[in-house]
């Protein structure tokens, strides 16, 4: 009973109150909804602290654990050591100076942004390589359509004009220059396709969100109690 019934009952009641507070113009329900959301924010903040503490615990455990003297184990220890030092240093510096401090800004601009930008660039290269090999993997009409759409999006996103400088073939961007209406037509087509596809995706997301909410409110799904 205490394992799943009470959490489910609490989740159902809170979900219904928040939902009614959003839908019904009743000040009491709106106030209650705001209070419940504040409580949820506090709990989420505390969950963030717990997650940080758990990361420290796991990697500290790896660091002090007796492992076999292998290259893999040594690498894991080193990675855990770096993670622990960086996490503790970031926590202490941001805690002392705040997000606008020099140390915090240095960490963000010198570590976070270059690192994640590099990862995103690798993702771009991987996507290009995969797109080029897609026909070897799946020789289907959909694969051909995928390539064609990718080329059109690339062409229209940047808005390629005609090179006026030297050193570049004059033919680049000629269609847009010679036929101004072509670029606009293609862009409308791409926008329409992209918008239609994205609307379908958003509808699916919205439907999934509503279903998820209903399942939680009804009690079919119990993510709060592991069900």
């Amino acid at each position, binding site marked *: 009973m205490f394992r799943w019934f009470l959490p489910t009952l609490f989740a159902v009641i809170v979900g219904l109150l928040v939902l009614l507070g959003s839908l019904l113009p009743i000040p009491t329900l709106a106030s209650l909804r705001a209070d419940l*959301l504040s409580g949820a924010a506090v709990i989420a903040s505390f969950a*963030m602290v717990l997650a940080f503490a758990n990361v420290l615990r796991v990697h500290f455990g790896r660091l002090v654990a007796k492992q076999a003297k292998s290259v893999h184990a040594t690498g894991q220890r080193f990675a855990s050591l770096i993670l622990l030092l960086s996490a503790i240093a970031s926590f202490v510096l941001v805690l002392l100076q705040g997000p606008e401090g020099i140390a915090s800004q240095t960490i963000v601009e010198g570590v976070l942004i270059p690192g994640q930008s590099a990862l995103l660039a690798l993702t771009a290269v991987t996507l290009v390589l995969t797109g080029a090999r897609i026909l070897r993997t799946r020789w289907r009409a959909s694969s051909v359509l995928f*390539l064609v759409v990718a080329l059109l999006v690339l062409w229209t996103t940047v*808005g390629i004009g005609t090179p*006026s*400088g030297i050193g*570049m073939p004059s033919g680049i961007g000629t269609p847009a220059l010679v036929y101004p209406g072509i670029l*606009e037509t293609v862009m409308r087509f791409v926008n329409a396709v992209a918008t239609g596809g994205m609307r379908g995706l958003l509808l699916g997301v919205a439907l999934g969100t509503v279903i998820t909410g209903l399942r939680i409110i009804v009690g079919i799904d119990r993510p709060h109690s592991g069900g």
Partner: protein
Amino acid sequence: MIRCPSCGTFNHDSQRACRSCGSALPQTRRRCPECGALNPVGNLFCDRCNTRLLDAEDINQRPASDSTDDDHLSVKGISLPTRPSTPVSIAGTEIGAGQQTALPDWLAGLVDEDTEFELTEPALTGQDEVDLGQAREESASLPHWLGGGDASMPAPLPDAADVAPLPSWLAGEAKDAEASGAAAGDAEPLPDWLTDVLGPGATADEEIPAAQEAGVSLDEDALSGRLSEKPSSEALVFAESELPNWLAQAQALTSDGPGRGDVPTDRVPVEVMHTVPDHTAGEEPGESSAAVEEEALVLPDWLQEIVAEGAGVAEGAGSEQLPDWLVELSRSVDTEAQGAPPAVSASEVFLPTEDGSAPAPTPAPRAQPSPRARSSEVFEEEAAFTDAGELPVAAVPGWLSDLAPMAPGVGTPVFVGQPLTEGHAPQNVGTDALPALHEGPEQVPEWLRDMDLQASQSGPAPEPVPELGDLARAEVPAWLQELAPPGTQGDVAVEPAVVSADMLAPADIPEWVEALRPEARAEGAPPPARAIPPTPAEPEGPLEGLVGVLPAVTAVDRPVSARSTAVIGIPGTIVAQAQLWQRLLEQPRSAERSVWYGRPSDRKGSGVFRWLVSVLLVAGLFLAFWLIPDGVQLARVSPTQVAPGAQALVEGIDRLEPGDTIIMAIEYSPAYAEEMSRIAAPILAHLRSRQVGVSVVSSLPEGAGLGYALSSSVYATGGPQDAVGMTSTHTTGGDGYLAGSASGIAEYLAREEAVSADRLVVLGSEPQRLIWWLEQNALLGADALPVSIATSAGAGPLVLPYLESSWVEGWVAGLPQALAYGQIRGDGSDGDFVRVLDLLVLAHWVVAALLLVALLYTLVYACTHHRRKGAG
């Protein structure tokens, strides 16, 4: 609730000891030996694992002495006993001390009840003792011969075996009585019940030659019936000479052949001779008095007492000890005897008169003999009557007269002494056997005539002349008749030698219960499989665990040809929508979805292709960036064509007044920081020009830091707050981090500082977080803030439907639209900004070229491959 057997207090089911007296409570649950699950006591099988909880041998062979209340609860009360593999003989099994036969529990219960007052004194508690006491009180109020062999008996019984009120079929369990008194096999010709009645010490080997010589034989059936239905030993005085006529006739008829029981008529055991008075056995009256006295010694106690009382009355003492009914009867007989013929007067000797007069043919008084001498005289006179063929009809007591059978078809009872016609005579009674009945009504005393007249006038319902067995059964108490096994109800003399459980079980157990009786299984054999009914599917969700809540699916599917009879048709779209909702709701989260993962074959040249792509990307980006001279602009952006939302965004920020405050939500990760900083640069420049204060918030932990990095990167000189009046959310708690995702955003928008803001500008690369801001702001209704959005090129198409909605007032997506925003404002394009845009143009061309080459190569390769295959 469990009722305490000691104090009667009700306790909870989970208690093992009484809460009032502390005594152990009966077991209400039985633990399964296999799985350990607790089952109700009545269960034969475990509810969980179907293991048999009670073994068949345990049920049959459980000793009675070891049985406790718990056992009774588990076996006797609810569960059925197991059918034994072999019939259990009741009569052939001894009951020793502490040993109980393998009786079925229901029969064992009967045995226990019988042995309460017959053999042993079982432990009685509670209500049983009260009931037994009441029964004894009731029996004490009855005449002693009707009271049975209980405490109201005038004389104590010699031992348990002499307690003869119960027939042997019921007392068959008390085999120790026979075993102690007679040798094994001696009592075989004699029914057990008769052996029990006649007492110990009797042997079956001795017969009654005298009775055979006298031509008078006892009808064992009738006698046994009488004895069995009259528990006291009073029945032993049924000498043939004393028998009523109707009974004597029946006796004569039945004595022609062997008895209906196992006992032949010529094999009356001598124990009858010892027990029954000699006149009953047809002894000649001329025998020596010594023999008479010897036989008188074995008179039943009750008869001896009567004789003694009669003598006592004659002596002037103890008259008050005579039973009232007997005194009254004696008085009436005495009165009638005054005018009765000599033959009738002579019969007075059979009744102990009040004055104790000796039974003499003449009414003259005589000296009072001793009790033993008196009994001798009685016997002699009785024998004289027997020899003369005259039955002392007047000596029939009233209680015996009441038992006279009714003449069939006439409607008047046939009383002793009544002049019988052929029509009155029972069909089974020969007239030659009724000498006294033909003597005429003058032999009938007045009191008998009155009774006859009253009985005739009363007009009782005509009844058929009953058999002797019926007569005997008429006096058997109802509770005994119910307990009589088959074969003894209508025929008392038929005594089943062996009564097995199989013979008794079908009569008491209904068929439907019998069908549930489990079969005995060998030791160590697996428990028999029990048919488990299919359980309904267990629902999920809040009804989980409640089996049977949902209605069961119909067992018969609807045929394909069957059509719905509903008048109102449901549109297919609604049905499809309902089915979609149903699938979405019923689909478990853990349902696996089939996803096809293709993996390209590792052909020759794959590595070369990877290297080629990498080299082309690097060369195309960096070399082109270095080779393109300044002043060459690759990107030509038409603001009206490329950035449809830029104009609205510019106009919205232009409406801000100096001193206004906007909320800037940073919703992008550090990976998009470079792109977003360039996209946000013209917007921040516009805000600075409008002297607008900015509050930086984010639902991402790193959002606040990225916000300040954005300001520092865009405006290198001075602090971010000095540049654009950017303020943080220190005063409202935290460093601009809004924990709780959408909930945190909603909670922040409800704050006072958010409500007082003039605009919301969201900078993001993650579509979901942008949607959160838009939705939560829209929920504010009239208090919603005007929203402007600047997003990355990758997230733009994903949130385009939202961007084009009425919730958004101006938006830009990607570097080209950001460049268009600057061109709209007319602030001039930044040189670095244009160079970056040109580099992106080159990168896009390189990527497009690679994809195109790959497409062509694949097409050519595929065509060639298929040609080879076709040629091969």
